[in-house]
């Protein structure tokens, strides 16, 4: 639920916006056969998310960052949302034991709706309430190959919701996870266990299966008191990769999970919950995906189909979302100057909502469809120097209606050490079912002895938010060991989410009280801008250092008449500074350190209703966090490590009460130990 993570309607749905690009063999590159060993060690491996085909990070006309397998292994962070702290320019704030607010380029909240998140091209963005349920994305880090992050619009190929960024989590192929592996980990913030087995079927197919368990311990109040909070999940999954021929790869993957979530809801919610507002809910789900990838001589093609089923029960409401998605794409090179990718998608989703007593929705069943197609062409204007990219996605669907999301990009690479790029894009954010149909009863106390209630109401006339973005960036290599990457952005966001206050109504039945309607709308616009800079230095093979600094700011303005408050607030620090270092200081030993400073997030104007206004506090103080890890390989097979997170202070707060309903907790200092085996 956008306005209160403690409220129900937190259902999961995996909407589909595509697939990763062909990772199977591309056409052989004859030049490499003549290359020297030294130049081969300098040749970069391609990334796939940006243009839905393999491309080089260096020559990408956008702000892209990749968390590699090595980064994952070295880092002290033990979950996907925590790892995203390593990405320069991404805002990551933990709200409680199982909840994060993660966004690119502002408008951060627990349901940051302008950042699309995919796992192997399968979307994990929820259409029920917009945003990403990070408490369900507990994939074992041992199964992740890399995480590709785009800041800025990716809607021209990925479609609606990729307005301010795209994250694609790419899992490891079965061939990379052969044999037995297991790990166990324990610390203040929780425990994890993991086991995996990978084997072969014949000489062309490999499979891999895993099981994992996770327990997240409760976070704290400002005085160190632990509250009712946390999560436990059991998950099992696997994949099968069949290299049918050198040009055809067929793969199947899936998972199943289930567990519980604990939370303390805010008082005043007009829904029956447990004593002390403590609520124990459950989550469950799974998916089954199949993909065929063909790498031909003149084109690469892929076809993907998947089914996804997610359910969630909390605060008396039960939601279940099911999605069926078909996606096809083709990559061709018509002529020497063009490199063209096109694709199409059909998607059907069904969302059920039911309640023990109070249904927090206008209806109990929603059926949605999505039809879309995209085409993007890289046109070489000057070979190896100047490339122009033009593309757009066109989509028609139940939630966002018809949307065209074009993008034009230009990159100039005068030599191998310098790249400068610019881009202009339009992207849309599809309304969630909650935006259109939520109904939440609230008890707001009394005034002059008369009870005051409110109804938080979705708006069937709510329109998609639209982002128009202008970006520019440069990359520069100095020597063989120093790289700088700087991006600037200016965004104009129209139809930003607002809340309108209706006139108080006196209601005589069943007991006399005053009721106020709070109606969701599109009553604000925003202009935002920022600079994201990254400096990487690798003084030696064994040592890497990355420093990043991000400045971002926004100006929001009411665009419709009436008494309105902004709901989708900027909620983003003006300054973020981060340093990370990884050092393999002796054979078998490695250590990593992460230090970040986040400036304060000031109060945002929030809505004020009766006494509730007095309790609203959206400000977050600036904080600095330090995270360290040291690990050692014992023999060939066993790695042990010790890590500390948030070492500088006993506890700190990372996210405020931006909606007037949230109950953010303090992130505690945590020490943990881990042992892993590879057989």
């Amino acid at each position, binding site marked *: 639920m956008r306005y209160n993570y403690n409220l129900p309607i937190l259902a999961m749905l995996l909407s589909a916006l595509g697939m990763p690009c062909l990772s199977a*063999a591309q056409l052989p590159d004859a030049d490499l*056969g003549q290359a020297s060993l030294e130049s081969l*060690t300098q040749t970069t*491996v391609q990334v796939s998310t940006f243009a839905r085909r393999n491309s080089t990070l260096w020559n990408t006309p956008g702000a892209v960052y990749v968390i590699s397998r090595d980064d994952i292994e070295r880092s002290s962070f033990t979950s996907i949302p925590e790892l995203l702290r390593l990405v320069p320019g991404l805002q990551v704030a933990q709200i409680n034991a199982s909840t994060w607010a993660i966004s690119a380029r502002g408008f951060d909240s627990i349901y940051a709706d302008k950042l699309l998140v995919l796992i192997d091209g399968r979307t994990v963005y929820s259409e029920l309430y917009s945003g990403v349920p990070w408490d369900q994305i507990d994939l074992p880090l041992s199964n992740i190959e890399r995480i590709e992050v785009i800041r800025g619009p990716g809607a021209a190929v990925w479609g609606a919701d990729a307005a301010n960024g795209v994250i694609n989590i790419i899992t490891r192929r079965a061939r990379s996870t052969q044999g037995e592996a297991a790990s166990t980990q324990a610390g203040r913030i929780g425990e994890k266990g993991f086991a995996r087995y990978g084997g072969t079927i014949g000489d062309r197919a490999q499979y891999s299966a895993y099981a994992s368990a996770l327990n997240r311990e409760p976070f704290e109040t400002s005085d160190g008191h632990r509250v009712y909070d946390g999560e436990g999940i059991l998950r099992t999954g696997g994949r099968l990769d069949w290299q049918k021929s050198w040009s055809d790869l067929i793969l199947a993957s899936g998972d199943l999970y289930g567990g519980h979530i604990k939370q303390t809801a805010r008082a005043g919610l007009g829904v029956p919950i447990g004593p002390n507002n403590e609520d124990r809910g459950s989550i469950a789900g799974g998916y089954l995906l199949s993909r065929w990838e063909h790498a031909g001589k003149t084109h690469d093609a892929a076809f993907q189909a998947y089914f996804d089923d997610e359910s969630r029960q909390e605060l008396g409401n039960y939601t279940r979302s099911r999605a069926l998605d078909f996606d096809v794409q083709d990559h061709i090179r018509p002529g020497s100057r063009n490199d063209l990718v096109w694709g199409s998608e059909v998607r059907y989703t069904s969302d059920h909502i039911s309640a023990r007593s109070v249904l927090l929705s206008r209806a109990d069943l929603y059926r949605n469809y999505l039809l879309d197609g995209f085409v993007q062409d890289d046109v070489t204007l000057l070979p190896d120097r100047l490339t122009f990219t033009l593309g757009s996605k066109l989509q028609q669907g139940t939630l966002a209606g018809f949307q065209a999301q074009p993008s034009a990009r230009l990159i100039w690479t005068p*030599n191998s*050490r310098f790249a400068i790029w610019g881009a202009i894009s339009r992207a849309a954010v599809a309304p969630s079912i909650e935006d259109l149909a939520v109904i939440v009863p609230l008890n707001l106390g009394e005034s002059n002895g008369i009870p005051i209630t409110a109804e938080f109401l979705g708006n069937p006339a709510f329109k998609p938010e639209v982002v128009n973005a202008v970006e520019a960036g440069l990359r*520069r290599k*100095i*020597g063989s060991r*120093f790289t700088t990457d700087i991006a600037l952005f200016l965004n104009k966001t129209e139809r930003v989410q607002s809340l309108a206050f209706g006139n108080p109504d006196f209601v005589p039945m069943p007991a006399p009280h005053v009721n106020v309607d709070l109606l969701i709308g599109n009553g604000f616009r925003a202009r935002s801008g920022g600079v994201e800079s990254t400096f990487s230095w690798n003084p030696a093979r064994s040592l890497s250092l990355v420093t990043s600094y991000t400045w971002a700011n926004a100006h929001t303005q009411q665009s419709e008449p009436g008494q309105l408050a902004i709901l989708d607030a900027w909620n983003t620090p003006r300054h973020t500074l981060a340093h990370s270092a990884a050092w393999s200081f002796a054979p078998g030993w490695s250590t990593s350190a992460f230090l970040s400073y986040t400036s304060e997030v000031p109060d945002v104007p929030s809505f004020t209703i009766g006494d509730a206004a007095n309790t609203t506090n959206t400000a977050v103080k600036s904080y600095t966090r330090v995270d360290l890890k040291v690990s050692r390989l014992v023999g060939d097979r066993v790695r042990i490590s010790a890590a500390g997170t948030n070492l500088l202070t006993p506890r700190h707060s990372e996210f405020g009460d931006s909606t007037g309903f949230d109950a953010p907790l303090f992130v505690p200092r945590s020490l943990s130990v881990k042992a892993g085996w590879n057989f």
Partner: protein
Amino acid sequence: MRQASLLQCLRKPSAFLLCVAAIFGNSATEKLGAQSSSADEYSIRAAMLLNLTKFIDWPAWKMDSSHPQFLVCILGHDPIEPYADRYLQNQSVMARPVQLKTLKDLSDAAGCHILYVSASGKRSFEADAAELTKAGVLSVSERSVSRSSAQIVGLPLDNDHVQIDVNLGVAQSAGFAVSSKLLHLATVTQ
């Protein structure tokens, strides 16, 4: 030189502006023309296979007249095969024509000069690794040598590059002579 000037940047605040110019400017000394290249990781590994032969000397008996061909073997199926097929075509090593062979098991592996162990062949390789090392077979795989006690060369992914690992101890005990130029490029384990 670049590193030295960077250090000066840090030591001399007055040089800071010049350093900023160095970072953002487009230095005339930069080589024009060559773009930073990129490729599929399997393509890079396949190209590295042949290159390795320029920096490694096989034991003399392995290159005598009873070995008229230079055999590059791939154990199990691996995505590098189509690239290897292309890059190794019509090549020769020490006047011996290179021949590429795909092996289903290790029964024929002793005659190979290079054995590239695919993910599916890992297990059978580990079981017979000691025998192969004695037979003058240079074992290579995409896994780092730190993950195997018997493998001589690893071509693991390190960030966005394919790196070269060499287990010098195993290489020397098997009678290989590894050039210092390769050791300069590689991460060496003893």
